[in-house]
């Protein structure tokens, strides 16, 4: 029998969301807070995203990804968070008891609260069921970022699958490594990034975006030689990068038996980041795949008071109202409403699956209008983060039916 260590909070995942919730918990007086991070260094995805734009919303500064990651780690350490790197949660042993594996072998930790902050990954080629050969040279954005950071050139001529923000980030990474971009392809009718980024890549790197077309097959051996498109054309290249199309790393959330939002794969949470498993919280991109790092950090920070409350009063909601969404909205997060609890940043984040002219949305409960208004900045574009105000949740009838969110024509 392995000795069981008892702690107050285990945070699984040492990215922006996990580090931020842990730091805030310590600042609010939580006892033993442990962050379990499987990589050798904490900090999460920003460690490998070596460009500016991090920390704006949470730290009110602009810094590079690696610097931002290091800053979050330092702040957590200063706050007294116990960060255990190179440590993996392998499975649940009990309701809030986890089995760990590290260089020292296996161990068990029992927590009063568990916060899942396991993040997201990009859907790889195989999960997208793209047929053809299985050559070298097929990657995701995160893989090429790590390669380039180590000075390893991913290839010489790439096709990028996807045309959302991260896809354009992949262009920058490849160009930095001296790899040209033959084309970006997206099955959608237009790219989904902001125009400045699109114009910058178009003028600086002359990147061609092929819309309304997808990759039909990959050919080549042992290295990629060409990509076949659904319109019958082929593109010669030695590199294919599959970008975006995020999947939450939900293995532990599933293992906990938490109810999953089928439209994005992450666990359902309320405004306080509570899942429907007692004492188990979920923060960051696990519950909204995928937002920027600072939004994840703020989500983590926002969850801390609720974790403190759970540690203090030992109460867990038994019934919550669900927000259902009508097409073209695919998901909203958080998707459970507790009228007494504010949502992170007083917003809901959501996604749509097609381009929509309207920017007006409406929330109803049992036929009664709770709110209508315009989205906060931007327009309804697939794969792009969309936010709406959340102050209206105070008007929700806690004994009423589900809330329905829809786009007004």
């Amino acid at each position, binding site marked *: 029998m392995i000795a069981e260590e008892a702690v107050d909070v285990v945070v699984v995942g040492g990215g922006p969301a996990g580090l931020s919730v842990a730091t805030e918990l310590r600042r609010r007086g939580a006892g033993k807070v442990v962050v379990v991070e499987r990589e050798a260094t904490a900090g999460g995805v920003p460690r490998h995203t070596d460009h500016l734009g991090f920390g704006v919303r949470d730290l009110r500064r602009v810094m590079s990804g690696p610097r931002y990651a290091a800053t979050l780690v330092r702040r957590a350490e200063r706050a007294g968070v116990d960060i255990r790197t190179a440590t*993996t949660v392998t499975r649940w042993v009990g309701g809030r008891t986890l089995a760990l594996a590290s260089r020292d072998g296996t161990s068990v930790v029992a927590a009063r609260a568990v916060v899942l902050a396991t993040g997201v990954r990009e859907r790889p080629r195989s999960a997208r069921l793209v*047929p053809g050969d299985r050559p070298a040279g097929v990657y995701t954005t995160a893989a090429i970022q790590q*390669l380039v950071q180590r000075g390893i050139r991913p290839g010489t001529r790439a096709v990028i699958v996807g045309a959302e923000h991260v896809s354009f980030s992949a262009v920058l990474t490849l160009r930095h490594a001296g790899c040209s971009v033959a084309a970006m392809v997206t099955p959608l009718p237009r790219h989904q990034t902001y125009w400045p980024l699109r114009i910058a890549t178009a003028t600086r790197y002359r990147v061609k975006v092929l819309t309304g077309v997808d990759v039909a097959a990959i050919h080549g051996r042992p290295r990629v030689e060409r990509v076949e498109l659904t319109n019958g054309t082929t593109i010669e290249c030695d590199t294919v990068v599959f970008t975006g199309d995020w999947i939450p790393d939900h293995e532990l959330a599933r293992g906990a038996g938490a109810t999953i939002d089928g439209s994005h794969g992450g666990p359902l949470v309320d405004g306080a980041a509570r899942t429907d498993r007692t004492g188990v919280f979920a923060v960051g991109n696990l519950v909204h795949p995928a937002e920027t790092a600072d939004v994840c950090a703020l989500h983590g920070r926002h969850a801390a008071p609720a974790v403190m409350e759970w540690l203090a009063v030992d109460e867990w909601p038994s019934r919550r109202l669900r927000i259902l969404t009508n097409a073209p909205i695919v998901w909203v997060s958080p998707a459970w409403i507790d009228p007494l609890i504010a949502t992170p940043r007083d917003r809901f984040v959501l996604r749509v699956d097609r381009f929509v002219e309207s920017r007006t949305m409406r929330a109803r409960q049992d036929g009664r209008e709770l709110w209508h208004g315009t989205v906060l900045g931007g327009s309804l574009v697939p794969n792009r983060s969309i936010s709406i105000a959340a102050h209206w949740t105070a008007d929700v009838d806690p004994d009423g039916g589900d809330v329905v969110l829809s786009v007004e024509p």
Partner: protein
Amino acid sequence: MFDVCVIGAGVVGSAVARLLSHQHLSVVLVDAAPDVGAGTSKANTAILHTGFDATPGSVDAGLVARGYELLRRYAPTVGIAVEETGAVLVAWTDEQAEALPALVAKAHTNGYDAAALVDAGEVRAREPHLGGGVVAGMVVPGEHIIDPWSTPIAFAREAIANGATWRPGCRVAGFEFGDAKTVVTFERGDPIETRFVVNAAGLFSDVVHELAGGSGFTVRPRRGELIVFDKLARGLLHGTVLPVPTSTTKGVLVAPTVFGNVMVGPTADDIGDKAATGSTRAGIDALVAHARRILPALADEEVTAVYAGLRAATEHSDYQLVHHPDRRYVCLGGIRSTGLTASMALAEEALRRLVECGLTMSPKEDDEIVPIRMTNLGEVEPRPYQQPGNTGIVCHCERVTRDEIAVACTVVPAATDLDGVRRRTRAIAGRCQGFACLAEVCTIAAAATSTTPESWLHG
């Protein structure tokens, strides 16, 4: 000069080399590819078959049944993961149900007595996640799942540990048969002088056979596509779910893997091209449709990998086993999908035929045979990441430690590319497909072999 040259380091050739290495003989194992098990042996259904459905009295039937017993016993002794999950053969129509009694009788004729008919309720009790429409079933408790990647590597490693020479990257160009020796020439590299030759060239066994002056069969590859579902699907399945076979194919099965995934396949397309190892839109779509029908909850799970492999089918239904004493030549050709199960029995068969060709066996004493130990890749037995003092997990999806990757790149027969690393360790084979670990795996492989990460990355 060697006593025996084994051509082909797939699961069959490697098994032959291993068994020969237990004799006082000099053995050389050659392959056209740079690695062991890199051809038709690497993409199969990873099942250790009882042989219950073989054609009674056929060459295959005896070899599959014997090979099953041999590999089942051997695998645990060297650390090849194997699990006795059993199988249930499911009839989805009345017509299929009517075929079941004959299949049970056939199993009994093949000497497999544990096969038994079960009703729909028993099928459901065993596999509660099956889709609707189960009419009846037949249980085959002895069916196993096995690690198909480690098996040929273990055979080759044991052969090498016991004195066999490993010559990768040698494609046979021709033979010069003399009175006492044969010269095997290659497209590149020095020729080999040997007394005896064993042809275990898999997909190219017909080509090698012709070069050796033989004839009588042509390999017409049958492409089989497979899809592997996420480990989160493993709980949906107790054991292997087989369809009722038809005259042309065994059909699409759903099986757990020893790595903790669920596999669906194979398709069966007769194609002419020995290089057509790519997957197809039609094949993948058909497998997804099969998956949803057989195990509907699979529709909600991600696909981790798509593989396509070629079986060395011929115009004949049986293995093509021939030997020519005058040329001191043994051919193990046309070994189809049952080659993994039959491999160790085929090795015995090869030795028997070598003796008939005039080779004198001289067995080593037990204590002269160097044992080997593979790193367990299965989910049942302990793995390195669970041991105190391990070197830390690098591939998180598959929980592969740093040392395992370095060992894969350095212990003979060593990996020569990332695919070889994947087959030896499971690294990069998981749900993220290298999103988190690709750069690190290349860096470790490069450091272990004093090469560059690019040389590993670019294949």
